[in-house]
């Protein structure tokens, strides 16, 4: 057997590697060389705890390990950290050439693309005291600034990372301002009434929440560190530390000029095949999910686990000339903010009808379904994990509104 390369050693890439070794029901796994490269000098951490347990100081960074971190030896990986992939040749008769940042040219029979995303930065010069939360290094640097006891932390962006960072900083007793350019938090994935609930949750905990206000620029002090944030509406917020959570960009620059289609990441078919001998998974992969009839790119933890495994098996199929199967999940994520657990499964849009099926928004413990015509597009729960999971299992069977609603019909 030849060599297979996995580009990216985070959650998705490692789960692809595991699946490549494990094989499928139809065929044995890959027993040849399995090279895993990642630009990070150390194994990337598990990300969900970064904005929660690690930032709060409850965990050391070393405790934030991806599930497979303890099984790398068993998987027999040729792990090359601190090494980026720099180009991928088109497929020849028996494979492709993957070029690495150390000049190595690897002849490979198959490739898994799992390079994830890179954080978006605010425009302008990089100032001291301005942080992202994506890598272990990011969090270590942010923790050092928080330990110094800043008088105010300004969080830019009220998505999951921003909202969790704001909650964790409040938990550390810090003064926090959270800025969001959109009219409501998490507006990209949640309808306005849910966003309003999230904003109120933070306000009740003493966060200064400002919506519909973009950042004009950051102001530096004489020491080169950030000192204030100037908003588009003309107001100025003093800040010793700024946490920026304005999303990530799929890391595909190195694939420009390859034979792959790059659109919102690496575009795959419904089975996660991106091109001959190439699959993609995790934050970098865009694919048409046949269950929803919608093209999507999903940045959630569980998707990286499941899609990584699927992509690994798909590559084995590709190399054996088998057709592969579609990847058709109901995406799911959770976000912990203060003592509230927010979970969402499905693909709602801001215009779907929000139908409460348990509890009330006022008591901050509720479950709701999202309706679009005769379809149920998603379920949302706040401290209602049981409802979310039951509905998710139903949605995995069918998106029919009546079936989902029947789960929560009063029983008599």
């Amino acid at each position, binding site marked *: 057997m030849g060599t297979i390369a996995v580009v990216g050693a985070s959650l998705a890439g490692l789960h692809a590697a595991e699946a490549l070794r494990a094989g499928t029901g139809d065929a044995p796994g890959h027993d040849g060389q399995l090279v895993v490269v990642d630009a990070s000098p150390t194994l990337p951490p598990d990300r*969900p705890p970064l904005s929660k347990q690690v930032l709060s100081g409850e965990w050391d960074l070393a405790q934030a390990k991806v*599930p497979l971190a303890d099984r790398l030896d068993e998987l027999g990986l040729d792990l090359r950290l601190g090494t980026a992939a720099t180009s991928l040749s088109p497929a020849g008769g028996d494979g492709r050439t993957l070029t690495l940042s150390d000049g190595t040219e690897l002849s490979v029979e198959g490739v898994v693309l799992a390079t994830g995303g890179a954080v978006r930065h605010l425009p302008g010069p990089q100032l001291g005291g301005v942080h992202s939360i994506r890598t272990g290094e990011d969090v270590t640097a942010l923790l050092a600034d928080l330990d110094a006891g800043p008088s105010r932390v300004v969080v830019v962006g009220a998505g999951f990372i921003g909202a969790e960072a704001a909650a964790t900083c409040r938990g550390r007793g810090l003064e926090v301002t959270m800025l969001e350019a959109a009219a409501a938090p998490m507006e990209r994935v949640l309808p306005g009434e849910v966003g309003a609930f999230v904003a109120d949750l933070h306000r009740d905990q003493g966060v200064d929440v400002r919506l519909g206000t973009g950042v004009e620029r950051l102001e530096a002090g004489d020491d080169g560190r950030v000192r204030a944030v100037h908003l588009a509406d003309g107001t100025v917020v003093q800040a010793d530390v700024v946490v920026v959570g304005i999303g990530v960009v799929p890391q595909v620059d190195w694939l420009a000029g390859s034979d792959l289609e790059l659109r919102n990441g690496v575009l795959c078919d419904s089975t996660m095949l991106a091109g001959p001998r190439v699959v993609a998974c995790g934050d970098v992969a865009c694919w048409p999910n046949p269950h929803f009839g919608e093209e999507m790119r999903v940045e959630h933890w*569980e998707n990286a*686990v*499941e899609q990584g495994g699927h992509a690994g098996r798909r590559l084995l199929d590709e190399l054996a000339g088998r057709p592969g199967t579609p990847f058709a999940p109901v995406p799911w994520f959770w976000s912990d903010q203060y003592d509230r657990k927010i979970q969402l499964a499905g693909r709602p849009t801001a215009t779907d009808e929000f139908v409460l099926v348990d509890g009330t928004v006022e008591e901050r413990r509720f479950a709701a379904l999202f309706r679009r015509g005769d379809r149920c597009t998603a379920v949302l729960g706040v401290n209602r*994990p*049981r409802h979310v*999971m039951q509905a*998710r*299992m139903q949605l995995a069977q069918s998106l029919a509104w009546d079936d989902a609603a029947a789960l929560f019909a009063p029983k008599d």
Partner: protein
Amino acid sequence: MKVVVNFDLCESNAVCMGIAPEVFEVRDDDFLYVLNEEPGEELRDKVVEAARRCPKQAIAVED
């Protein structure tokens, strides 16, 4: 097969319940209850899947 949950890690995300409701149940108090700590072999695939997808890696399956 024995199912062991580390309740210090468990955050009641209920993923396990979605996959293996015969074994795992998250109740209205938001706590996870293991309904059957020694499930039969016919449930092994589901329990292993639940352990793999647990976002807190709080479930161990011992033979």
